[in-house]
């Protein structure tokens, strides 16, 4: 069941969820700014995530609001894992997009030290079509999420990656390790694949990158309007996360 909070917790005086307010403060301190609509949308997103038991499992949430590197680099969940962007990105109210080959955002989050091998997830919400980019990855096959050539690919804590056929379009994508031996590939609210793979370890010593390890061939990158990294989710939770994120982006008129 998806819980829609009856109390939005945000008014003209700036009252809001404490975690949303802390995020707004980080954006401001970084030199960024948010519109009233963006603040309201973020506040509602935080409240909705909490109402659906989705806040606690998250380690990093990038809502990609504020139309600047300073704002989009901020992690909604906490002051940890503030991102940095390589050259060539554009930042707009519609999301963030690398206009260069090899453009990426470093999340500063390392799977080997921050993610469980039996419970983890990576997700993105893109509102333009993908082009073979790895949405989130850390340089080895035991941690990535990607669409390419008509398939969703993903793995967490095993180099035995999973894949399932896909229409490579703008959508919400997730690789979700639900347990020591269960990994799921998800598109929007639907589980596309349930794979039996045993999570053993994250071998990479690199941070997880957004728009990661795109080759210099893949120039036309997709536009990101949300990304998250965290603990594994139940099917109900992952469906609710899609609903919340899609509603968030609909509020901002940038839904896919």
């Amino acid at each position: 069941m998806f819980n829609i909070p009856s109390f939005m917790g945000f008014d003209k005086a700036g009252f809001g969820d404490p975690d949303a307010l802390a995020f707004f403060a980080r954006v401001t301190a970084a030199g960024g700014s948010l519109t009233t609509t963006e603040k309201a949308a973020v506040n509602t997103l935080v409240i909705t995530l909490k109402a659906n038991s989705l806040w606690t499992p998250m380690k990093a949430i990038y809502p990609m609001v504020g139309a600047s590197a300073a704002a989009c680099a901020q992690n909604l969940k906490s002051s940890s894992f503030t991102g940095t962007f390589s050259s060539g990105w554009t930042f707009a109210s519609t999301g963030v997009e690398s206009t260069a080959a090899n453009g990426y955002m470093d999340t500063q989050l390392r799977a080997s030290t921050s993610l469980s091998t039996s419970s983890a997830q990576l997700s993105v919400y893109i509102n333009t079509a993908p082009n073979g980019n790895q949405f989130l990855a850390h340089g080895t096959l035991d941690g990535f999420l990607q669409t390419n050539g008509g398939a969703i690919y993903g793995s967490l804590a095993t180099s035995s990656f999973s894949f399932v056929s896909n229409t490579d379009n703008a959508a919400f994508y997730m690789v979700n390790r639900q347990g020591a031996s269960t990994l799921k590939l998800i598109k929007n609210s639907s589980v596309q694949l349930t794979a039996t793979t045993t999570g053993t370890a994250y071998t990479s010593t690199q941070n997880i990158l957004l728009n990661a390890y795109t080759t210099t061939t893949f120039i036309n990158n997709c536009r990101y309007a949300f990304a998250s990294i965290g603990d594994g989710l139940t099917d109900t939770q992952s469906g609710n996360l899609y609903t919340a994120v899609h509603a968030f982006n609909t509020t901002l008129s940038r839904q896919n």
Partner: protein
Amino acid sequence: MIGYTLTPEQKDLIQGQYYAPYQFFNCFKDINDIWFLFLSDQDKPEVEASEYAWVLDLPEAEYIPPPAPPFPPVI
């Protein structure tokens, strides 16, 4: 696609360096092993205000991507 071209020495001067608090240079080679840098329109004022403003005076050229790597990629 047009980008700035750099000598290896120029690349070494800027690769990974921050031109704004949350943005850093990332250069890469084209099919002919020439170093390239792409900057978005939003990047340029930030670079111009930094100690790396000279980058904006670098010659520009058409970027030709190298062949696609094997898939799935292994780093």
